[in-house]
């Protein structure tokens, strides 16, 4: 048997079993999924950054901007913030429960997190439809100010909403896998990281898109 045949035979043996290999330790000392999520967050933060800078640019350049949000919208935003923030805390509770091995509790908290996420999305859509009802469009400003308000508001919050909705779907997926034992607490923790990031983005979107546009 020559060397290459031997290696092929060895490799087939290797894949059949799980075996231990010594590796360099990751400089971060964290799970590779978690590191991957962090890297994703860095790039996604830049994407949101570019959207928000485009908004800032439009706004500086506009002679008249107009500030459409009344107090009720701001209150709605406050409630949305509270909902999203609580969902971050419930997510945290889910991760802790998963880490301490109380699977049922973790699943319960994950469910609460998803429900809070859905409530956030519902409140958000209500805000959108209210604006549609007032005549706002991506390309139209019924108050006669800069038409960029609709474009920037709907695109920035739309991107955020996409993140929330895909977060809910991802959480549902992970909860199911966790329940069936395909996934473990590290998956829950990684999903949690993403969820907190969505919350983090909202902490900038709310003041910049809502409060800066309060009447």
């Amino acid at each position, binding site marked *: 048997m020559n060397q290459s045949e031997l290696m092929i035979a060895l490799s087939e043996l290797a894949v059949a079993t799980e075996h231990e290999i*010594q590796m360099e330790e990751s400089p971060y000392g964290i799970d590779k999924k978690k590191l991957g999520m962090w890297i994703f967050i860095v790039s996604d933060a830049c994407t949101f950054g570019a959207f928000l800078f485009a908004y800032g640019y439009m706004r500086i350049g506009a002679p008249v901007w107009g500030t459409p949000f009344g107090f009720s919208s701001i209150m709605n935003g406050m409630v949305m913030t509270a909902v999203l923030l609580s969902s971050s805390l419930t997510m945290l509770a889910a991760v802790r429960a998963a880490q301490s091995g109380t699977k049922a509790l973790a699943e319960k908290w994950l469910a609460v997190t998803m429900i809070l996420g859905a409530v956030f999305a519902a409140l958000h859509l209500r805000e959108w439809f209210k604006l549609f009802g007032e005549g706002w469009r991506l390309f139209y400003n019924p108050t006669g100010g800069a*038409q960029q308000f609709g474009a920037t508001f709907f695109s920035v919050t739309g991107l955020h909403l996409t993140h929330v909705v895909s977060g809910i779907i991802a959480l549902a997926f992970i909860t199911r896998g966790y329940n069936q034992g395909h996934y473990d607490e590290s998956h829950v923790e990684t999903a949690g990281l993403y969820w907190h990031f969505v919350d983090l983005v909202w902490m900038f979107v709310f003041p910049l898109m809502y409060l800066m546009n309060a009447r």
Partner: protein
Amino acid sequence: MAQTSVRAVAHHAPPQGFVRKYIFSVDHKVIGIQYLTLSLVAAFVGMALSWAMRVHLAWPDVRIPLLGWLSPAGAPGGVMTPEYYLSLMTMHGTIMAFFVLTAAPFAGFGNFMLPIHVGAADMAFPRLNMSSFWVTFVGFLLACATFFIPDGPPLSGWTAYAPLSAVGPVAGPGQGWGQNLWGLSIAMFCIASLLGALNFIVTTLDLRTKGLKLSRLPLATWGWFIDAWVSLLAFAVLLPTCLLLVLDRLGGTSFFIPGGLVFNDQLQPHSGGSPLLFQHLFWFFGHPEVYIIILPAFGIVSHIMPTFIRKPLVGGWKVITFSEIAVGTLSFVVWGHHMFVSGMSPYMAMVFSVPTLFITIPSIIAVLVWVFSLYGANIRFATPLLYSLGFISLFISGGIGGFFLAQPSTDSYLHATSFVVGHFHFTMGLSAIFATFAGFYYWFPKMFGRMMNEKLGKLHFWITFVGVYCIFMTMQLTGFAGAVRRYSALVDDFMIPLIPANRFMTVAALLTGAAQFIFLYNAIWSRFKGRKAPDNPWGATTLEWDTTSPPPFDNFGGRQLTVYHGPMEYDGEASVMQTSPEASVAGT
């Protein structure tokens, strides 16, 4: 402080069935070859487009075979219309910059080699890796589809400057669905690149085998690792740019379209957008993109050279790597040099000019390292080394053009001339292509288990090397006469005297392009009929040469690898494998 951790590694089983094995494969080696194949197809498409453009510029009335069939409207009878010329130019730039130059040296070789270089069985996220490729593939299909839709391919250039690209069909031909598909195609490419970069970073950091400290990483891996960071941040900004452009086109928004625009005496409904915002967003990505293309080339050349000069690079891994890091970092603060005469604030021109000039320092350090490593060497002139030497020469020739384009005062004359076109073809186009060829000839035995034909390889090198100088040095120098780029015909009084030079370039381009078929023949013939490759045909030291050619499914057959040395243990005929516990011969 060698920290190691024992980890249980669960291998995914080798796939069964044709589809799992060769099409939707999660094996990084298959994905790497898929990327390279995609790039090869894209490169020949891009080259065919450039042939058609060059022939049209030199002999505007010549009927170009097949073109009339491809687009009866764009090239009636094979003689192209001005708008079809611009479409070909746009698609040449898009296909070459994204699907060839970004995909081949980074995603192609990186996918195949990076996990092997670090001693891993696969990428950190194999399924993510597979989806990166297939998203790229769909992006490429969308780009190619523009040739076959009634609206025709876009004609706004690969930079797609708004508002020409944003207002829609009123701006003339090529502004219909072709431009929409272009935006979607590039957005998909962004997503694929982001996921790919993420995978590269995590693999390099987390999957290194025992003893492979960062200081012992092969230099190609350093190139891909740094490049992954640059792509991660740059494509993150191109993605929203494409989305906003598509939103302007399909959603009626006005991010990039100001008020008061009139087409065919019709006032457009847009108002308040800024074309300069598009340029800023695009070039914020666009300039790092140039380095995304060239950094893997730096890495590949630095990886290949020590094998064939039989000594380590001057300054070891540190000098070349730190210059790559410096280049990658500075690449984010220089984008404004594309916009000196674009109506940007003239004070910002100075802010961008100084770092642009300073980026020459790390670039020159890299060139000096390569050149002075040749001093006192035992050079073996295999084809991969010839291509590396060609890379150095081309990079010098293009690099010096940077001095002119980095300064607003000189750029205000040379901007948008063929000087720029020659400059970027040298520095990023050809340099990256030469490094890709070097990598291809170098790694082909490992990828397919067969050697490539050296004679054909050298023939291919000589024709290509001399040919590209004839094309692009002429192009660069005619820029001093003010030859404007992106013109579909030479009709201005000062352009007419340049027709002979253009004919010369066209003939050189046809010959150089024809030489690429030698390469194609060599690759296909060698794949099936080439001499069987030994495990380590070049006498190299890095991990990919420490396994069979081609490597088994999990790369090393489940062996425990321990790395004892850096990647450049060469001393003339003597060399020490990274995994060999023997004493160092090069003292690195």
